[in-house]
């Protein structure tokens, strides 16, 4: 059978210290994200959301790699995790892209010219 090299009969036991370190980091990042949200960034206020998402991504990465053992997992799991994130990015990215695109006005003069030249209602 096509097994990965990681035979699961001998479990990879992660040392306690690793779990505690990850836990501590998660706590630190939680405090950090609340702090960043509360301070006044002045003209850079728009940075609040990107920063919050960045910190959340770091926290999620810690959980995925260590608590969920992907760091020690097979390459196949890596591939599927990355594929899932890519697909989510497609869904969000393309959809939001439509809404951004709706605000881009076509060149009004070009628009005017074609509308003057041929009104589709008269063509019918």
């Amino acid at each position, binding site marked *: *059978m*096509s*097994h990965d090299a990681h035979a699961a009969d001998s479990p990879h036991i992660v040392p306690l210290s690793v779990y505690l370190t990850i836990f501590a980091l998660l706590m630190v990042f939680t405090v950090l994200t609340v702090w960043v949200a509360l301070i006044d960034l002045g003209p850079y206020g728009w940075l609040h959301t990107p920063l919050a998402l960045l910190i959340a991504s770091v926290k999620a990465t810690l959980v995925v790699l260590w608590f969920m053992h992907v760091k020690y997992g097979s390459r*196949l799991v890596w591939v599927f995790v990355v*594929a*899932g994130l890519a*697909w989510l990015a*497609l*869904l969000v990215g*393309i*959809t939001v*892209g*439509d*809404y*951004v*695109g*709706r605000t*881009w006005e*076509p060149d009004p003069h070009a628009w005017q010219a074609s509308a003057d030249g041929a009104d589709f209602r008269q063509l019918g």
Partner: protein
Amino acid sequence: MSDRAATPKTASERPPTRRRRSRYEGDVPREHYLNVAYGLKSWLFTIDHKRIAILYLLSITAFFALGGLMAVFIRLELLTPAGDLMTSEIYNRVFTLHGVLMVFFFLIPSIPAVFGNFFLPMMVGAKDMAFPRLNLASWYIYSLGGVFTLAAIVAGGVDTGWTFYTPYSSTYSNSAVALTAIGVFINGFSSIFTGLNFIVTIHKMRAPGMTWMRLPLFVWANYAAALIMILGTPVVAMAIFLVAVERLFGVGIFDPALGGDPILYQHLFWFYSHPAVYIMILPSMGVMSEVIACFSRKRIFGYGFIAASSLAIATVGFLVWGHHMFVSGQSIYASMVFSVLTMLVAVPSAVKVFNWLATLWRGSISFETPMLYAFGFLGLFTVGGLTGLYLGTLATDVHLHDTYFIVAHFHYIMVGGAVMGYLAAVHFWWPKMTGRMYSEWWGRLSAGLLFIGFNLTFFPQFLMGYMGMPRRYHFYPEEWQVLNVLSTAGASILGLGYLIPIIYLTYSLRYGPIAGPNPWRATGLEWTTASPPPQHNFEQTPVVTEEPYDYSKPIVNDLPAPGAGAEPKPSPAAPRS
């Protein structure tokens, strides 16, 4: 083909199935998956993938029949320009139900849940799916979704169309939208679980020697479809969930009155539902690769390209959903990008078609029933796919959108392509599943009827649509009556073509000649075991040493006697190589 004439087939070269009585009579294995246990409980609690496949076969046939009945009503109503058979309210419910049943309860599960379930583990040389209980659960979930949908009919039906567009579905419709939505939502999970099982089975359960490049193309196609099931279905589940929540609690997510955007629903819906059309067609394409190679007695041309194009379709298919929204108010820049990508997605489909044609080239083709369906698929799918390009072109779509041209386009693909592929699979694997041959004469007759009936039904719809007849109306100006009458006439022939197989296949269960292990002398692990297969598929775990589709060597319709180790009898119909 000139060299075909040079080597005429002698009577002895014909496959044994043409004879009234097979020489393999008596070869039915004493114990197989059908007779290891009897009684309702042995079926309802089975975790054997083969029995679950049969459960699915029966249920999707029932839903297909109900969906077909709705089609009868639609075509009857459209026989005359006036809306005289039913009211608009009823007509809306009829076509909605037709779409919901056919898409979600027949076509999406059809080939994966029946033939994928039955043959995928056998093709990779496994005893079962990776998660047999999850497999059974998926059938129960499917049935539960079906119950909700049927309950919605009793509760007055739904009139939104199979697409459940907001805000009509979420705010205005006075029909049982929530019940149907819940039914479709639940049903989605059966599809997810089937896909999940496929992927794990293909990754982890392959027999020794079954490398990726030795997998049958049917397996590749189902792998690609399973990826779509896993990545797409949850999004439509969420979309439909949000509609249901909005309806039940007045929580306005797509509600324009609160500033919500109904078109957002279309994004979420089509993110799944365009790829979903590939869930329907990819497994059919997998069947094509098996059938065309077998009845051309030739190694499939371009194995790697066909396998890779399945994955390409699954991937690129996720990037084109906006072509359903060209006239919805979507940004024209998004439309432009979606239009270009739509052109792109036609490429891998075309790659497959050309590879099948190259496989036929200089093969020794014979015209058994499955092959007739395969030819039907080739032509009809091509027409459907090419008309998709008209629709993907921004300017032409403004004219064609929501007309009968669309209806014809997707029926050419979903009925002409996917259902023809499904029927090819039924006829190809029926002997393996039941151990019996069906009547070849009746099989060919109904394949012919279906092809004629199909074209007569749907070709006129291209013309009507081009002339501007909108879809989803039950009355129309008189100048379109001739075309509509033709279409209804075709639908009657089509209906007959669906009824006949039900009769002769059922008849074959008892009276059909014994098929033997490999009546088509096909390659593939599923043909190396008895028909019907034993409970655990193979007597011993098979070891694969050959490339797929090796039709250059003689293949026999016989299993060596257990333990005898005797030379297999050479087939009487050793193929020309």
